[in-house]
């Protein structure tokens, strides 16, 4: 892709919307995941007694939280894929369609 085509797509409002939305969404989810993980590690490192608290019989809070961290990783990636494969890919298609002539010429 030559610089003029790149600059043109960069200026496209739909590209800017795509770029801004996706970057915000990606970093938000990253921060959520980091907060969950380092929060869990901090609990383990600084409040180990809480990990052993019983929730129901021998099932402890630590066990429930540990499984919850694993499930949260799966759910967060699922949410990202769902939105990216829908909204983001749709926007990408539109950006490509609006610049199809330049892209053809550039090839």
């Amino acid at each position: 892709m030559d610089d003029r085509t790149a600059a043109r797509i960069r200026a496209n409002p739909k590209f800017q919307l795509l770029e801004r939305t996706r970057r915000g969404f990606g970093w938000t989810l990253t921060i959520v995941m980091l907060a969950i993980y380092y929060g869990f590690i901090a609990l383990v490192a600084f409040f180990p007694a809480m990990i052993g608290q019983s929730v129901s019989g021998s099932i402890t809070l630590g066990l429930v939280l540990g499984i919850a961290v694993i499930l949260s990783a799966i759910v967060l990636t699922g949410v990202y894929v769902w939105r990216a494969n829908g909204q983001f890919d749709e926007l990408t298609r539109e950006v490509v369609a609006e610049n199809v002539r330049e892209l053809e010429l550039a090839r």
Partner: protein
Amino acid sequence: MIRSVLPVLLALLTTQAAQAAGPAVDAGTRQPTNWTAIAMFVGFVVLTLIITAWAAKRTRSTKDFYSAGGKITGFQNGVAIAGDYMSAASFLGISALVYAWGYDGLIYSIGFLVGWPIIMFLMAEPLRNLGKFTFADVVSYRLSATPMRAMAATGTLVTVAFYLIAQMVGAGQLIELLFGLPYAYAVVIVGVLMILYVTFGGMIATTWVQIIKAGLLLAGATLMSVLVLATFNFDVNALLAKAIEVHPKHGAIMLPGPQVANPISAISLGTALMFGTAGLPHILMRFFTVKDAKEARKSVFWATTLIGYFYILTFIIGFGAIVLVSTNPQFLDASKQLLGGGNMAAVHLANAVGGNLMLGFISAVAFATILAVVSGLTLSGASAVSHDIYASVIRKGKVSDGSEIFVSKVTTVILGVVAIVLGIVFEKVNVAFMVGLAFAVAASANFPVLLLSMLWRGLTTWGAFIGGFVGLISAVALTVLSPGIWTAVLGLSNAPFPYTSPAIFTMPLSFLVCFVVSKLDNSRTAQRERLAFEAQYVRSQTGIGAEGAVVH
């Protein structure tokens, strides 16, 4: 000298834990030759060799050889990624950790899992949209090709070498135990089979071997977990209560143990595991086997789901082993230790819940696992030499597909022979630190350069080159100065660097050096590289012009 059975376990363990979880293995504990296991393993080898022959006919271009022609689907690739990640060490090592310490095993497996969402949110799409065969393609996209490829290939080879030595030593020890074969034979068998898969079948064979093995491993672990839970009428509470009752540490197995006693070590190790994943070259390479960013995303989702599910299973298996193995004298020696060492908890459990047939199956799956993982590692090391160094740096891209593949195959054979030799030479080394080192190098050298090259306009060749090497050298140096090598291997007292993993210091250091050097770099080249970010960014965001993409 403590020799842990499973090298990969080491990734998970501090020295003290390795000593506790993996008692010394000597020739006297070798198992009697297990014919059921050998028969099942031979069955697996025959099947995979047939696949390799099939794949060889379909491997014509470099694109076929390095990236399976980009024809792997998102789901298939997700299974293969999960397969690369669920090494024998994960399976035997984490269940052994749960068996010995309880809750600590869960803490480690979580550290291994949470890198995946980060890869998804920040890296999967630009990586797929910019790369061709190796992650060096991405970092050299707008930066000077020669220094960046040299840097990325060095990072790849160092990571692969440590990981490969660990896997080979682990393979030898595991096979010695499981099949009753001598150590050196086992290492040679693994090396030769791996050379066959990679040289003849390239990425197509490597991927399918990985998919089959991942399926077998997940099926085996699921079956064992169901059998364990069935013993307790699917009452998890009863399983835990019984485990607490019979384990020598009793209630303490539900609490954080010695592995995480030092918060800085815990956080540093967690950092290495989390971001190291995003810098492992054999994992990054898998993103180029799918056709577009959408399939790359699906790959990460399936990989995360399968790996998360698998870690929950290893926890059930570890607790099952506490209840069913530690109470059965059949599996213990005179001092109440597990026969064959601490890492055999899952293997003995297979016998306890499913008899000899299940034991044979799980043993064969563990061997297959090592074979598949070393194949992926070797292919990634070979591609760094043939694609990055030979084709791009030495021949400046003027090279035919045929001669590039030839160089790759020769490199594979050399790497295979080197791996066999190192596997035999390092038989007695504590491999835990090899794996820990591989993750620390990946997190401190490969990951910062890769992430910044994709997301930060300001990165220049000088910044990336110096930052990457500072990360690489500091990670290796601090590991040598840490208790794992300084005290345990070199026999010196008072390790200058007291923590398990250097990543919490070396990864930020690498980012900082990349940033500062790039900011100071005002050469003409640097200015051109910043300008070139625009076109790279548009391609990374939209996939326009990406390898294999079609513009309508």
